[in-house]
């Protein structure tokens, strides 16, 4: 029972994890992206369409990455080079994603593919209780876990990571240190958007291997909230994503067992939790210190006189 729930938790948490990691990368550079929901949808549809057409899941994932990256490039260009309003641009990106995927997705509704299958890791999968849940998953789950560690190492152990964090905190300081602020921000938006796209593709290629309109169902928004919960930290993001995955798994389980609670109420749970978590994350903070990148949401203009 625990094993099944844990297995479902990780599966439900993985799309959130990809999207959250992508959003963290972008926000660390100082660009807030409320378009994650749209990017996930673009990734989900492109991934499904490419995988179905080319009959290759791998190509599906790659296509999802690049399609979401292209969509994110619009946001990056507006925010970084035109110094537009990041909130408005991000919201438009979400609406754009919803619109364009429902338009081009019509012909893919009802089609099916064989989704990612489980890959059992020898020895580790024999650990009692958790072995089957963690070490008998699909490759994307393993990839997401590796990504958590890789991102942490990137941000705190490499020069590029240090520069990226500095750009997000104080672009003026980075610029006067000879760091190309625009390039760092744009690159972060591109790669981050791509990761959000993979999060979407996980839904349509592994979680439920088909395409339906608006299949992300607000997961992009949960990812945006998770970034704050995770305090812009990739390992905390993993905890957050699995927490939400767990709530989702439990509510599905309860529905399946046929409780007397209204299924609508149960489906609300993850979203209610989002609100609760945001309140808690904000209350817990030490006064005067915030893990939020200081320049988050602001455009950088070298010649602006402050």
């Amino acid at each position, binding site marked *: 029972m625990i094993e099944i729930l844990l297995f479902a938790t990780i599966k439900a948490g993985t799309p959130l994890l990809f999207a959250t990691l992508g959003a963290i990368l972008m926000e660390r550079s100082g660009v807030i992206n409320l378009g994650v929901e749209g990017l996930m949808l673009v990734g989900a549809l492109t991934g499904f369409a490419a995988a179905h057409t080319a009959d290759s899941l791998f190509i599906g994932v790659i296509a999802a990455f690049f399609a979401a990256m292209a969509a994110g490039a619009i946001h990056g260009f507006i925010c970084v080079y035109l110094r537009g309003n990041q909130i408005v641009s991000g919201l438009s990106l979400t609406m754009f994603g919803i619109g364009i995927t429902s338009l081009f997705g019509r012909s893919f509704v009802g089609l099916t593919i064989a989704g990612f299958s489980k890959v059992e890791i020898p020895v580790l999968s024999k650990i009692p209780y958790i072995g089957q849940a963690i070490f008998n998953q699909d490759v994307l789950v393993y990839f997401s876990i590796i990504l958590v560690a890789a991102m942490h190492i990137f941000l705190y152990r490499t020069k590029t990571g*240090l520069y990226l964090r500095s750009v997000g905190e104080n672009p003026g300081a980075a610029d006067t240190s000879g760091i190309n602020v625009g390039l760092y921000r744009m690159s972060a938006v591109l790669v981050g958007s791509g990761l959000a796209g993979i999060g979407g593709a996980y839904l349509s290629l592994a979680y439920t291997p088909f395409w339906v309109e608006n299949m992300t169902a607000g997961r992009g928004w949960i990812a945006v909230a998770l970034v704050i919960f995770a305090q812009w930290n990739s390992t905390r993001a993993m905890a957050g994503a699995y927490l939400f995955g767990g709530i989702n798994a439990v509510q599905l389980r309860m529905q399946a067992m046929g409780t007397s609670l209204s299924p609508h109420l149960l489906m609300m749970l993850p979203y209610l939790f989002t609100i609760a978590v945001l309140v808690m994350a904000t209350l817990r903070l030490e006064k005067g210190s915030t893990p939020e990148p200081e320049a988050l949401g602001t455009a950088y203009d070298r*010649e602006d006189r402050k």
Partner: protein
Amino acid sequence: MEALLKVESVVKTFPGVKALDGVCLNVYQGEIHTLLGENGAGKSTLMNVLNGLYSPDSGNLLINGQPYIFRSPKDSIKAGIGMVHQHFMLVYNHTVFENILLAVSDLPFWLDKKKLRIRIKEIVDRFGLSIDLDEPIRKLSIGQQQWVELIKLLIRDCKVLILDEPTAVLTPQESDRLFGFLKRFKEEGRSVIFISHKMREVMELSDRVTVLKKGTTVKELARGEFDENVLAGLMIGTDEIPVWEREKKQFTENVLTIEHLFADKEKNMSDLIDFSLELRKGEILGIAGVAGNGQKTLAEVLTGLKPPVSGKIFADGKDITNADSRKAYIAGIAHVPEDRKSMGIAPEMTVDENLILKSYKEKPFRKFIFQNFKAIKENAEKQIADFAIKAGPKGTPIRLLSGGNIQKVIIARELSMRPSVLVALYPTRGLDMGSAEYVHKVIMDARKDNMSTIVISEDLDELLKLSDRIAVMFRGRITGIVDPEHTSREEIGLLMSGETVQ
């Protein structure tokens, strides 16, 4: 001898303002070169051009006779120019260590923190600094933050060091230490470009002075060719500094009486401990002391930003310690805050609007639920003329004004309510001589109208000039009250370090 760094007729325009209008500058090897000029003369703009932040519209930049074009600060770093900005370019949430790493040019992709730490520790130790590398910048004092900036430049091994008003935020001891360092730096054959408004520093340090005015070079003078009067004359364009006679007064009434006040402790600041003080009607009371000894808390309590923990405050004999009775008093007190840009103004709003921030609800600025724009405009025109504010074209956001003009707007607004008490914190910090002189004059004029003023400042010259009495604070207490006419710098200095006078 050819100049190491040569700026030839550089022009830089911002929307609506010509900040630099053909400015020239010659900096030679191994000298400390001071840039003088009023606020808005273009000093900072020129330095930002040298730093690669602003790209000039026209003009040349030569280093060792070679022409250079800086497309970004990176080019400026490569040319060996380093700058400590007036507002430090530090990442406040990162540690000292991480901030210094930004300056290491041959930083490897994989950060070997142990190895890098040894290297940086060495440099920090060489300056005998007691800075914890793992402390985040925001927890450092301003003086320490400046050292971090300097260390960053030293790591880059720069040939020309630019310091934009480095002493505006330092205590006298910290300034002396900085000057010692600059002299050593010069002896190594490097050059320093130094911006300051404090004449004494300029005289002490400079080998050469360039005076700027309205974006052009007025004069370049070598050591021996200038003294304080010559420089002041060149800067403000007149040959004499106005001196006024202080009118003798007898003070009888108390407007404010503070008794045994205790106020909250905040972070590293000293709070107020059993603090008592009287402010008499029509006097200017100076408060001296090294920053962080409770002055800020005192101002916050007096202006109603912070409630006291215990003790009593009386205004005109009425107890105003608790909240309800405070309201009217707080509404009537004038406040010139310490940080003028974040507390004194609404930066994105226009000068007209900023002038009525406190009285927008009152007549004639209000008409039913609407604003009376005609009255607002007339008020602004009058204040701008009275205070000689350079407000730029109509509708300019106030943040684009120079510091001196912003300060004039704040003072104009605060005094227009005809307050009985003015609390002014560091009223001339970072202002040029002309503006500072003007601010002093306004405060002195208001004294004639029997307004009482508390001036909190670190500039002893300012306090000695303005005050009827000077109270010296140390660790939240008054260590002594002196008469400016019968005291000495030494006496005040001793009081500032905690010696009490019987």
